[in-house]
């Protein structure tokens, strides 16, 4: 274990505030269907590109759909997909890194060489190619970003295991006849979780931007499903007529990414100060 840093109360307060805000956003995305003032998928020829009014608090898009409801439902898509994508890559990457670091040899070689190769592709380029070929959809977009996403955790977990392996308490667990699975889950995992969680927390914002970017290009979440990136793409041609149709999802994206990035920063401040800025 590295020497413990003493953190100011401020860092903890910040962490709780942003945890609260992020929790609020997640809650909001769960109860979104109850909050929608209108049906997010109902089109209407009467209210095309309609300015914000009492019935449509944020106006309507070119198909006459309620922007406010779509932004709310879009929160669901964006937050759910980013958080679950980070969760999955975090889990898969950590497990693979753990296995590679603990067993070494051929298994290590295969896993880490695979990671090396995946890292040879610029993440967004590969994601665009994969999502483009698979032809859109939320699952495909997540897959496209996840292909390279796991390597971050795998490398980190492996490095941690290699360092921890030499620790006396790990040796002791080994000598006392614990199975590999037991050592990995009860001895190694709790001691290496910190840096992994820090990275996962900072990745949520990155993945959110990635998924929104793919959707914007038309190869991520596709119409008519409500998603901020694709909403912006659909409305940008009409931005002169209906700026609200672009600005509402844009502000939602900016705020959400900022909150999750702040959360990532404060998790890092509390858990470890050593990693790069």
């Amino acid at each position, binding site marked *: 274990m590295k020497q413990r840093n003493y953190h100011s109360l401020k860092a903890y307060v910040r962490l709780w505030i942003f945890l609260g805000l992020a929790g609020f956003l997640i809650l909001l995305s769960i109860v979104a269907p109850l909050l929608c003032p209108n049906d997010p998928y109902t089109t209407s020829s009467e209210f095309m590109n309609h300015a914000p009014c009492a019935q449509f608090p944020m106006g309507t898009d070119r198909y006459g759909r309620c922007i406010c409801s779509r932004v709310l439902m879009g929160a669901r898509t964006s937050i759910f997909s980013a958080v679950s994508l980070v969760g999955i890559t975090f889990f898969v990457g950590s497990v693979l890194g753990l296995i590679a670091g603990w067993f070494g040899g051929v298994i290590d070689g295969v896993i880490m060489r695979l990671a090396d190769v995946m890292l040879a592709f*610029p993440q967004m380029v590969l994601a665009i190619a994969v999502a483009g070929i698979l032809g859109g959809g939320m699952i495909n977009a997540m897959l496209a970003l996840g292909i390279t996403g796991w390597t971050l955790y795998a490398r980190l977990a492996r490095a941690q295991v290699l360092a921890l392996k030499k620790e006396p308490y790990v040796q002791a667990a080994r000598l006392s006849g614990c199975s590999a699975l037991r050592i990995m889950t009860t001895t190694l995992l709790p001691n290496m979780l910190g840096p992994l969680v820090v990275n996962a927390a900072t990745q949520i914002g990155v993945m959110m931007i990635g998924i929104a970017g793919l959707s914007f290009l038309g190869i991520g979440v596709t119409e008519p499903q409500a998603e901020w990136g694709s909403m912006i793409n659909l409305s940008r041609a009409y931005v002169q007529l209906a700026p609200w149709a672009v600005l509402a999802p844009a502000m939602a994206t900016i705020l959400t990414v900022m909150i999750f990035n702040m959360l990532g920063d404060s998790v890092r401040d509390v858990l470890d100060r050593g990693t790069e800025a």
Partner: protein
Amino acid sequence: MGTYIGKRMLHLLWIMLAVSFLTFLLMYLTPGDAASKKLSAQGVAVSEEVLEKTRENMGLNRPFLVQYGDWALHALRLDLGTSYKDGFSVTEKLWKGLKNTVILMLASMAISLLVSIPLAFLTAVKKNSWVDHVIRFLSFVGNSLPNFLISVLLMYYLCIKARLLPVVADKSLKGLILPCLALSIPITSRFVRQFRAEFLEQLCKPFVAGARARGVIEIYVLWDVLHNASITIFTIVGLSIGTLLGGSVVIETIFRWPGLGKLAMDAISNRDYPVIQGFVLLTSTIYVVVNLITDVTYHWIDPRLRER
């Protein structure tokens, strides 16, 4: 140093082999067979007879590994096949796009460096002052903005509302401004944060205190700090090439800049697989080679690493 470069070159060789294999596999695994894709991309009515003939011509009846080997050997000779869409050579198309993308990337990188280094210095020297807080907040916001959003917002406010700039990027300098801005804002923001951390670390070093104690003018001290930080700056710049390559796809599509990214997006919407294949292979090659150059230069600049 020689053995280090040799080792890295070997590593590069096998990585490129694996990359090319995966790229080929990716296209091979796409649903539907290549012959009907080619014909439908050209808009030809598909009959079983024509299909069989095209398959024969394209060599699709051979085993997978033979097809890969053939493709890879041609790729080594810079022949990436022909576009399904119009029959032009993929290499030529990529080359044309590459030139424009490089212009865009170099200009964006130059803007990013010119803005971020002075700002990072300012925040590091005036640590915890209001200037520091404002710049750090702005860089945080910039880092949270997706580049497509920046593009759309810039377009709306600068082109449509203020009518300052053209919406579609022509090849003039004026047309280059918006794509460059959109591409460089997130990168600049990240640079400011990373450079600030490095400058702060350097400013704490004894040589700075020593120079200041001897009454050396501050500007010379800062010059030395910049000099010492240059290795880190260099590495950070090298690592950001991936972000630039990915970002340029989005930016070029929005501003219709005729670069690699736009080529790739057009190819995706046309299901023009040889072009997508070539694009992935080319960008990965650029990425890997730039990373190699960064690492080797890093070893070459830093005398402590050179001796090993």
